[in-house]
């Protein structure tokens, strides 16, 4: 096909995907690896790529230990209760104890962080969130990464990891293609830090037609972090833990600052409070340890996000939708009104466009909320991703195999969405995880763990053939028909994506079935997935842009298959409001107070599932809250 092969050799650290995790990794790697060769491969342009491309209006993870606000263990407790127990607390603690240093650096680099004029501390949106003017968040961290990397390859879509042929289960780099030139890129590297991001668009979105790109997580979040690692045989965890978001309808505008800073609240279509009505029955389903509004009230312990979704979903099903956000009070204050709008302009411009187009002025009208289609990601309020080693000083044996954030493949590290079991890292935590992974990767190399890597030309050319196959399939099949996109020999990437989304929606608990599934639906779905997998061998790309879409689709497919397998394995409804297993509605702590771990055999494609122990590193209740509870006679 005439595309050149470009080999970049002797790389020490390859950063695959430079969003918030990848930029953090590239930056920190330079400090611990002064003379190391650091290379970035990014499918878009690092200046505006990933989930933060538009900007953000808040940094969602900041302890404020410097201002005496929170300690890392407070955040661990918070993430744990929000995820109904299922958190890798070693990783969460480790991220939280370092995250403030990342945020302080951002401020020094020029990121405008708002301040509370009374206390001098950063202006809080909520206990964990601080407010920023973050339109240029991504360009700023990109500059840090560019300052540190030896080379940045923009517009190179990484399709596969390279594996060492002298030692089983050791990484040796990655391959991909340039989305502009079509050239084949080979990166031979001692280590890889995978920061290729979480997955949108694997479940059917609520938006249709031209609007299908208006999803909550970016449409270019193709689950590549998972696809790359799963394909190589890395163990994954918590892939069943998809997230459903309550957001402003159609635009997916964020609600965080509205709830927390503007103090808006929700009500049903008839102006009634609805949430508390659903809690008694829900408490029976999940147990008092996860839902106890009284205790939550006394200790400020938050009610898990998924359970709040549950109330919205049920109220709407009961015929009292839509749910409204009461903005009409807060927006009378011109300052708060401005913040409300800035909040969109800084991170979800589409919501501002929608309200302008539909004449919804939240000052005079309470806008509608809705629950989104599910997403699979590991850094927001959900914990999908690779099973990684934790830090030496905190992790129990089962969670520690030498190098922080290293996956079960030697030399392969994760950051951000790629790392499993670390919800509530968000942008700052993802960047921090990249830094942690980079330091560990340097140590791994310095310890001589990457010596003697062999990659044969056979592996390189096998991957090349595989990568360009969709172009070949198109060329061969195209001339059999007169015109159009209907062909008996292939499907195009959009058709494949539509099929995947429909399948995920109907069998794996998307919005179309009210987030409900069961063992029967899941097994039918898995059968259909297997056939889709076969058909994806015949996906056809008419040009290089479609080749990009074809590989994004393949990564989404691998991610989806893992979601199916995990959902089937966890025989309970751990997160009502995110999804329900109709055949196992109750939270079953006796059997399922565990983390789920999967591995897909790279040779056979077979899955093995296991349970991993769940360690709680910190006590349940903060000291001051405990004292208060006792004083009030609760305990």
């Amino acid at each position, binding site marked *: 096909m005439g595309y050149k092969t470009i080999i970049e050799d002797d790389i020490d650290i390859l950063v695959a995907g430079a969003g918030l995790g990848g930029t953090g990794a590239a930056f920190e790697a330079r400090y611990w690896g002064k003379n190391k060769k650091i290379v970035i491969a990014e499918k878009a342009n690092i200046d505006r790529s990933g989930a933060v491309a538009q900007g953000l209006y808040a940094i969602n993870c900041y302890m404020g230990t410097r201002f005496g606000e929170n300690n890392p263990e407070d955040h661990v407790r918070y993430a744990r209760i929000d995820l109904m127990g299922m958190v890798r607390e070693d990783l969460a603690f480790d991220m939280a*104890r370092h995250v403030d240093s990342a945020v302080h650096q951002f401020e020094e680099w020029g990121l*405008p962080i708002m301040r509370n004029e009374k206390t001098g501390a950063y202006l809080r949106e909520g206990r964990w969130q601080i407010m920023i003017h973050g339109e240029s968040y991504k360009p700023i961290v990109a500059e840090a990464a560019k300052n540190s990397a030896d080379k940045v390859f923009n517009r190179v879509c990484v399709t596969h990891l390279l594996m060492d042929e002298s030692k089983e289960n050791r990484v040796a780099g990655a391959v991909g293609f340039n989305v502009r030139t079509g050239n084949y890129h080979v990166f031979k590297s001692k280590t890889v830090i995978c920061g290729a991001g979480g997955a949108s668009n694997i479940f059917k979105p609520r938006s249709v037609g031209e609007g299908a790109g208006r999803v909550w997580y970016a449409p270019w979040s193709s689950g590549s972090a998972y696809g790359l690692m799963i394909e190589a045989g890395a163990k994954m965890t918590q892939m069943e833990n998809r997230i459903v978001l309550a957001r402003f309808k159609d635009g997916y505008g964020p609600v965080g600052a509205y709830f927390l800073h503007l103090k808006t609240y929700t009500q049903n279509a008839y102006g009634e409070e609805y949430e508390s009505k659903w809690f008694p029955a829900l408490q029976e389903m999940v147990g008092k340890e996860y839902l106890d509004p009284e205790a939550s009230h006394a200790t400020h312990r938050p009610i898990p996000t998924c359970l709040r979704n549950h109330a919205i979903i049920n109220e709407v099903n009961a015929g009292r939708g839509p749910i409204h956000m009461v903005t009409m009070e807060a927006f009378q204050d011109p300052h708060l009104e401005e913040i409300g709008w800035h909040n969109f302009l800084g991170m979800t411009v589409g919501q501002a466009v929608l309200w302008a187009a*539909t004449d919804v002025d939240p000052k005079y009208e309470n806008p509608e909320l809705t629950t989104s289609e599910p997403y699979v990601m590991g850094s927001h309020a959900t914990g999908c991703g690779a099973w990684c080693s934790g830090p030496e000083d905190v992790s129990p044996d089962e969670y520690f195999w030498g190098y922080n954030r290293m996956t079960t493949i030697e030399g392969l590290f994760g950051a951000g969405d790629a790392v499993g079991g670390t919800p509530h890292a968000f942008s700052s935590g993802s960047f921090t995880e990249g830094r942690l992974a980079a330091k560990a990767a340097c140590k791994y190399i310095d310890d001589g763990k990457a010596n003697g890597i062999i990659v044969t030309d056979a592996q390189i050319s096998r991957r090349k053939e595989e990568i360009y196959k969709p172009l070949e399939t198109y060329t061969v099949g195209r001339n059999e028909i007169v015109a159009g996109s209907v062909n008996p020999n292939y499907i195009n990437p959009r058709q494949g994506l539509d099929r995947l989304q429909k399948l995920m929606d109907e069998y794996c608990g998307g919005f179309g079935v009210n987030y409900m599934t069961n063992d029967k639906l899941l097994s039918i779905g898995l059968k259909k997935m297997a056939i889709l997998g076969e058909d994806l061998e015949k996906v056809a790309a008419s040009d290089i842009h479609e080749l990009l879409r074809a590989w994004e689709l393949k990564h989404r497919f691998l991610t989806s298959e893992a979601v199916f397998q995990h959902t089937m394995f966890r025989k309970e409804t751990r997160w009502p409001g995110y999804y329900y297993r109709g055949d196992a509605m109750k939270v079953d702590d006796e059997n399922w107070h565990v983390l789920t771990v999967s591995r897909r055999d790279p040779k056979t494609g077979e899955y093995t599932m296991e349970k991993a122990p769940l360690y709680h590193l910190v006590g349940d209740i903060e000291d001051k809250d405990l004292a208060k509870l006792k004083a009030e006679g609760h305990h």
Partner: protein
Amino acid sequence: MPTFVYMTRCDGCGQCVDICPSDIMHIDKTLRRAYNIEPNMCWECYSCVKACPHHAIDVRGYADFAPLGHSVRVHRDEEKGTIAWRIKFRNGKKDFDLLAPITTKPWGTCIPQLANEAAPADSMRDTQLLYNEPKYVAMNDNALMTLESNGLEIKEGVYY
């Protein structure tokens, strides 16, 4: 909301093509001007809109839920370090401007070149510290927190 390009303003410079994270701004081969090749993969992230030197790109709300007749325009000024927005409602009742800072420092000057920093001591490699720490954790000389320093220990009890 998907983008579109005004024919008379675009000169085909390709800056939008260079920046779009979704790889959907392309140059039309006949007209030599840019256009959005895949509106249903557009996130209306406005990256291209901000990057266009001629303000040739605009956004029209998604056809599936947004009526015609509104506008949300943007001007990002790197030198001044600001971003300006103008929002016009369809019914003409609201037309307002909003301004926000995008950086507090001149571009390209405040991010350290770590290659020029003193190399960390070998003993540092075995600690849990990152570059700048512990100083930057609390912006003073406090040590990094560990389970012990926080008075915590691994709680006994594995749950299966």
